[in-house]
């Protein structure tokens, strides 16, 4: 294909390749996303950009032409959309269902385009594409004007912190290149953009299909005096200067220790600049040191800036490893274990407030629990709705608590240090993307009070090793009966014990909780904390709770020192427990009078590897208790 285009100077390539290469080595990079509704012509626009920038070769073009005739929607003309709709299944459906990244280059810039789907159920993909974009092109079909989805996409673009917005009013060829139509749409959009906080945008009338105002000003729109889409994309300022002017921050990815004489901290600089001799502080520990060298394969640097991957060496042997952040000493970021964040739920399985999720921010990986959301944001009306949990594609605002302090910046200040993902601890799926709004000051103000008498002292005084014997099993499985028996026998052995019983705790500490999944999680979290405090006091704690979810039992295990949590699975089959029905609860559940009953209409996740397994079919409670005590001996 030899179409003359403003993208590449074929003459220069042919005549003086070295000059061409020199010119192209100094190009900058712009990442942008295109978003629009199903039929706004996104894929066509991207196909057009690739076509015009000569990123399509003859063999691909031949395939495209034959594909166009077979699957295309443009009759005999080339259907550019087919060029970018990748996966075979979606090609047949004629819609894009995932994020695809495309590349093209002009004389001034290299571009990476995220093609993100426009239809209803895929907020998640659009958020993904937007997270790395510097600029967003929002497409509107000139025949239809603003749609619900235009509002949603604009809101998401704004939420994800994209500062450069282009409003591309597409399919101008189908509205006769009418200026009034265009101006109406722009005015509508301006009013909406202002209402959600988009401060400015650039509007361009285009036709992706015909090529108007894509690379050069179109003769069809003499009333439009602004830049073509490409001209605008080539010249828009990326925020590099601002990023470099910000205070220095670098998350440590990996400690480079090839031999005893070298210890370097490898990472990509998230903001600011650094020079040898600069004073730095390790966050969250607060230790300070001085940068001695900026090491790279290409030699030591005098200065490194945001975006570069480097290795720093420090003057002092400070404790610093993956997950720590190296910051300028005088202006470090905050570190907190509580913050408020806006987050997008991306998983089929809904958010469970109170449950522990992995939270990854920069190179930090911690466990985070989420409070019930303050509200959910309806992406269509932008109203705040009351919400107990969040489902797929829902956006909410909630308070987060992490198991140790993490260093961060509000997302509005730094995307790299304010954006995080949540990972389900069992499926390992990425379930949410979050943006930190601000730190909750109480975490900064509530400090651990060091106590003179340690937990070891308490244990020694009682002449025993603390344990939490965690009984789990169905209602009526015999947990309380066996736990009681174990406590009696331990008591006879002069052990200091305490039994926390599910029903009893619900009369007091947890009387505000019901039986929804969310409340059940909170129930176990509180019991876990109480059990931990009692173990700190040196006691052997027995707990008898259904505790149906693996994740919460795992959470309690994580609260205690290794070896102190003993999971005891009272493995009585459902039929047996239901046949006994000591409290008459199964009958009520079966008749529908009792909702969310474990084993009936609420799941029980059996332990995979309990420390001890007993049942009440083959053993009497006394035998089960003896078996348990044999397993946990010795106790000091």
């Amino acid at each position, binding site marked *: 294909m030899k179409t003359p285009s403003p993208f590449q100077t074929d003459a220069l390539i042919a005549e003086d390749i*070295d000059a061409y290469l020199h010119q192209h080595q100094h190009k900058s990079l712009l990442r942008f996303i295109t978003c629009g509704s199903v039929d706004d012509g996104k894929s066509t626009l991207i196909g057009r950009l690739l076509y015009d920038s000569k990123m399509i*070769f003859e063999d691909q073009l031949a395939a495209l032409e034959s594909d166009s005739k077979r699957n295309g929607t443009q009759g005999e003309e080339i259907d550019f959309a087919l060029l970018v709709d990748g996966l075979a299944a979606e090609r047949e459906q004629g819609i894009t269902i995932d994020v695809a990244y495309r590349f093209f280059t002009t004389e001034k810039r290299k571009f*990476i385009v995220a093609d993100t789907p426009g239809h209803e159920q895929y907020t998640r993909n659009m958020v993904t594409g937007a997270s790395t974009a510097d600029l967003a092109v929002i497409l509107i079909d000139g025949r239809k004007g603003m749609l619900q989805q235009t509002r949603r996409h604009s809101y998401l673009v704004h939420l994800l912190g994209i500062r450069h917005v282009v409003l591309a009013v597409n399919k101008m060829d189908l509205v006769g290149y009418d200026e009034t139509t265009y101006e109406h749409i722009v005015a509508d959009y301006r009013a909406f953009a202002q209402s959600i906080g988009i401060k400015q945008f650039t509007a361009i009338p285009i036709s992706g299909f015909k090529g108007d105002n894509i690379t050069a000003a179109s003769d069809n729109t003499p009333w439009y005096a602004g830049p073509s889409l490409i001209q605008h994309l080539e010249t828009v300022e990326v925020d590099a200067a601002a990023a470099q002017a910000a205070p220095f921050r670098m998350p440590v990815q990996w400690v*480079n220790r090839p031999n005893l004489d070298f210890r370097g901290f490898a990472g990509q600089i998230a903001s600011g600049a650094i020079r040898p001799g600069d004073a730095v502080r390790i966050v969250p520990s607060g230790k300070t040191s001085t940068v001695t060298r900026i090491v790279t394969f*290409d030699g030591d640097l005098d200065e490194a800036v945001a975006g*570069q991957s480097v290795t720093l060496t420090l003057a002092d042997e400070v404790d610093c490893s993956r997950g720590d952040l190296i910051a300028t000493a005088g202006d470090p970021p905050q570190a907190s274990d509580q913050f408020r964040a806006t987050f997008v739920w991306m998983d089929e399985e809904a958010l469970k407030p109170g449950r522990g999720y992995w939270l990854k*921010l920069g190179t930090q990986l911690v466990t985070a629990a989420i409070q019930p959301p303050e509200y959910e944001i309806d992406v269509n009306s932008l109203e705040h709705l009351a919400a107990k949990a969040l489902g797929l594609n829902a956006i909410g605002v909630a308070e987060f608590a992490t198991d140790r302090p993490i260093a961060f910046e509000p997302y509005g200040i730094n995307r790299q240090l304010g954006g995080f993902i949540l990972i389900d601890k069992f499926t390992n799926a990425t379930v949410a993307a979050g943006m930190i709004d601000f730190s909750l000051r109480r975490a900064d103000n509530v400090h651990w009070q060091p106590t003179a008498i340690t937990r070891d002292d308490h244990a020694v005084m009682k002449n025993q090793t603390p344990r939490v014997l965690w009984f789990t099993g169905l209602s009526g499985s015999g947990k309380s009966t066996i736990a009681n028996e174990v406590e009696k026998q331990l008591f006879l052995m002069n052990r200091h014990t305490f039994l926390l019983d599910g029903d009893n705790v619900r009369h007091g500490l947890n009387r505000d909780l019901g039986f929804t999944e969310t409340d059940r999680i909170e129930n176990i979290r509180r019991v876990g904390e109480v059990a931990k405090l009692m173990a700190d006091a040196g006691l052997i704690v027995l707990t008898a709770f259904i505790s149906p979810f693996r994740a919460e039992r795992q959470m309690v295990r994580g609260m205690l020192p290794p070896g102190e949590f003993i999971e005891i699975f009272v493995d009585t089959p459902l039929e047996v427990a239901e046949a006994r029905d000591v409290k008459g609860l199964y009958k009520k559940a079966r008749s529908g009078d009792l909702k969310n009953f474990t084993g009936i209409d609420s799941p029980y996740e059996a332990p995979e590897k309990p420390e001890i397994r007993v049942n009440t079919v083959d053993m009497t409670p006394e035998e089960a208790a003896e078996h348990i005590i044999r397993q946990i001996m010795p106790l000091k």
Partner: protein
Amino acid sequence: MIDLTHLERLEAESIYIFREVVAEAENPVMLYSVGKDSSVMLHLARKAFYPAPPPFPVLHVASGWDFKDLLVHRDRTVREYGLKLIIAANEEAEAQGINPFDTGSALYSQAQLTDPLKRALSENGFDAAFGGGRRDEEKARAKERIFSFRNAAHRWDPKSQRPELWNLYNAKKSKGESIRVFPISNWTELDIWQYIALEKIDIVPLYFSKPRPTVERDGMLLVVDDERFRLEPGEEPVTRSVRFRTLGCYPLTGATVSDATEMSHIIQEMLLTTSSERQGRAIDKGQSASMEDKKQEGYF
């Protein structure tokens, strides 16, 4: 204020990805095909861990029909940089009667490339493998994540990919899963060549034009790289100045006639060319979704 060029930004991103994997995986490996993309990947790996050497071995899937020059280059590179090389090969190919002349391309690539690769990954217990795939190569690749998960059978499920936001990669694996990581996903062919030129990266001489014995077959120019090349009746090798844009098994990889003996001329040809680099590969032909099918099977 320092303005980073697009190549500097790509380089920094790739280095970041290498380090994330090494920090989070237990037993990573780098797939090393000895081609230009692999050479760039190796160069980036050396940069990422400097002054330490790359903290993982490199794995070459040798089909037995590799270009001689490629093997020489591989062994020299491994020696020079002190790398640990693992070679994966199908030892029984000859006994099974598999060769690039008689075996269909699908079965051939399965038996000689995909299966040995999967076996080597499983046998060595590698939980993360760096690959040189680029999103600009092919439509199916454009949608692949940088961290791409494979189940225990090394299959890719394009429907259940994890979203990748910002520069946060979720490297948590379930039992039996492994990750294919593509550190140069965002590079284009032009970026690769520019970077090779700029960084003076040593690449296999097959990329440069030289008089080579060739035969023309099925619209492709094949180089008679050794005496095992089976000539059809009436075929006679002709010496032509040719080079390769992509390197696979020599009886399946088409050469292009060229005078480009220097890097800048290669780039010049690439920019002025009218066909994509994968056109030289017999394996990609067939229906247009075939790359996606192969990826689902575990082809890199």
